[in-house]
């Protein structure tokens, strides 16, 4: 055969081998448990409870938007060769639903931590009966349920290391309890009329409900939506009316929506600044103070309280 034809066949063969190579199922634990986490928030939880005993891969790093994230072929391969996939759930990872379901049928243990929150505590999405707001982790109290869930799942899948998981899991839950109290105190220190949180998308509803703040987002529950002109206008009017001194951009959402919002408020004679960047759907960069869940929550609260109390008046 001609050289070109040989080359073509070689390329096809290689592609087939590579494509089929990553589909193994793990039937027993050999070596450290291979865990894949989707968002950095869930990844941090897995690391805290799993400790050094697990081998952890987190798909989405700092600043990545989980609503829009589309898994690449490489991601799918990593997931398929894992023994457990931990994801937030409630459609937060909107573009990964099918892949996660597929992994489930292949025998990989999938753990949807947000769904471990008691159903009555979940917030429904406006206009939809069966869909819930997935941003539960900002209610630190509720996130304890997620920690408990993951601890139990790890124990179930890897009983050899059950003691370690139990210990670390309980420690995490205790830490969350303390954090919850801290946040409550900090927010309570804000004057009543300043307890309004305006951000790019509706990521903080649970936060607002738990700690007593009125929360407004420009985009809806998912950043995949596009805001209409009317949405910007309505929110700008709201901000101007309430005399709010600060609004917040988010690390995983384009800031220009909030910038457009502030321009609109200023045009109405309001006086608003961008109070800072909040971590909404992802943790901060590794090596910084917000690289863990606890650090992120603290950083967010500091930013919010600092901007809303200090500015003006």
């Amino acid at each position, binding site marked *: 055969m001609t050289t070109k034809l040989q080359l073509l066949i070689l390329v096809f063969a290689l592609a087939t081998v590579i494509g089929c190579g990553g589909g193994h199922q793990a039937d027993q634990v050999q070596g450290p448990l291979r865990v894949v986490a989707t968002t950095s928030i869930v990844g941090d939880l897995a690391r805290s409870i799993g400790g050094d005993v697990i081998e952890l891969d987190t798909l*989405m*790093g*700092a*600043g*990545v*938007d989980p609503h*829009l*994230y*589309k898994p*690449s072929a490489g991601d799918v391969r990593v997931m398929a060769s894992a023994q457990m996939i931990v994801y937030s759930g409630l459609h937060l990872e909107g573009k990964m639903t099918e892949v996660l379901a597929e992994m489930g049928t292949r025998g990989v243990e999938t753990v949807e931590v947000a769904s471990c929150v008691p159903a009555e505590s979940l917030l429904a999405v406006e206009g939809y009966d069966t869909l819930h707001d997935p941003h539960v982790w900002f209610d630190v109290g509720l996130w304890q349920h997620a920690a408990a869930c993951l601890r139990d799942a790890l124990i179930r899948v890897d009983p050899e290391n059950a003691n370690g998981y139990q210990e670390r899991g309980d420690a995490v839950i205790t830490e969350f309890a303390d954090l919850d109290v801290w946040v409550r105190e900090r927010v309570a220190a804000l004057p009543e009329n300043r307890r309004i949180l305006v951000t790019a998308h509706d990521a903080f509803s649970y936060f607002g409900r738990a700690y007593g703040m009125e929360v407004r987002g420009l985009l*809806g529950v998912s*950043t995949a*939506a*596009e*805001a*209409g*002109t*009317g*949405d*910007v*206008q*309505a929110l*700008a009017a709201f901000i101007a009316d309430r005399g709010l001194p600060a609004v917040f951009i988010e*690390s*995983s*959402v*384009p*800031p*220009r*929506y909030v*910038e*457009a919002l502030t*321009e*609109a408020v200023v*045009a*109405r004679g309001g006086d608003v600044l961008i109070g800072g960047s909040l971590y909404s759907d992802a943790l901060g*960069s590794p090596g910084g103070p917000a690289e863990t869940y606890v650090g992120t929550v603290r950083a967010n609260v500091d930013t919010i309280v600092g901007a809303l109390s200090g500015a003006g008046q």
Partner: protein
Amino acid sequence: MDFLGDYTLRIVALGSGVLGAAAGALGCFAYLRRQSLVGDALSHAALPGIALVFLLTGSKAPLPIMIGAALAGWIATLAVRLVVRRSRVPYDSALGMALAVFFGFGLVLLTLIQKRPDAAQAGLESFLFGQAASLLREDVVVMSALGAACLVVLALLWKEFKLLSFDTEFGESLGRPMRRLDGLFTLLLVVAVVIGLRTVGVVLMSAMVVAPAAAARQVTDRLAPMVIIAAAIGVFSGVTGAVLSSVIPHLPTGPTIVLVLSTVVVISLVFAPKRGLLWRWIRLGRLQPAAALDPVLMHLYALSLQHPEEPDHGHGLAVLRTMSPTGADLERVIGDLEARGLVSAVGEGLWAPTPIGRREAERNLDREGEVGS
């Protein structure tokens, strides 16, 4: 509600209006040159340009992004030209391939980029369908400047672009640099497309280029009115889309603009005088049934066969009257045949079948199995 007073509405409407005017006006020339697909190809090809600008510079400012988009679109047209010249691939196939390849490459880049921590902040995904409500003052300033520049160049080089669209060869024979003008026109189109990327996005941008021209063509037979009407339709759709999106909550601006535009096009296609569907249906509806028309058409066809070298050799009504069945209202029948495009007047009182009429007559002959007359 104080429409004009609202800042956001002013900004979004201005940006959308500028886009509508530039895309609508330039789209007329693309339409007349039978290159409507170029707008679609250019907008899809812009995606990898946007992604690469971000990858290489980390910038999210409007001007670098627009330059990246424009360069990518430009390279796509060069690639198309190369393929057409060096192979047998026809122009529109090459355009389609460029569209798919560049867009696919852009999507691959987006998938790669999404893992970067600052990627979500750049909002590159928003270029797929646009985010008109997030237009900032600096965006609109750049868009207006570019849009105005396009229209000024169009006005200055009006007759050159008319030549380019109607008879390129003739323009060459006059010594005009038609190849370079073609390049300039493509550049203007690239700029118009780039203006629209933030407003309606890559996927919907082609509508802004094609639809106003198609709607305008229905209502006029002259170029200047066509361009002005197309620009007006573009502006109208842009502004109306912005207004609707501001009045109805949760209505995304970009797609709304395109919906308004589509509605205008449909109205034009159906209701335009002379070319509109409704008009033609009414006129044809009042015509005689086909049976009475055939004999006269066949007679004219038979007469034309006597003059094979002169398809436009006409015959008068007097001749036809001697051949037609008695009692037929010949003037009326000829008028109806003309309305259906089957015959045309070739001189004073002289009629001949049109190419369509000829085909119809031949089909009749086949059906009846007759040979000759």
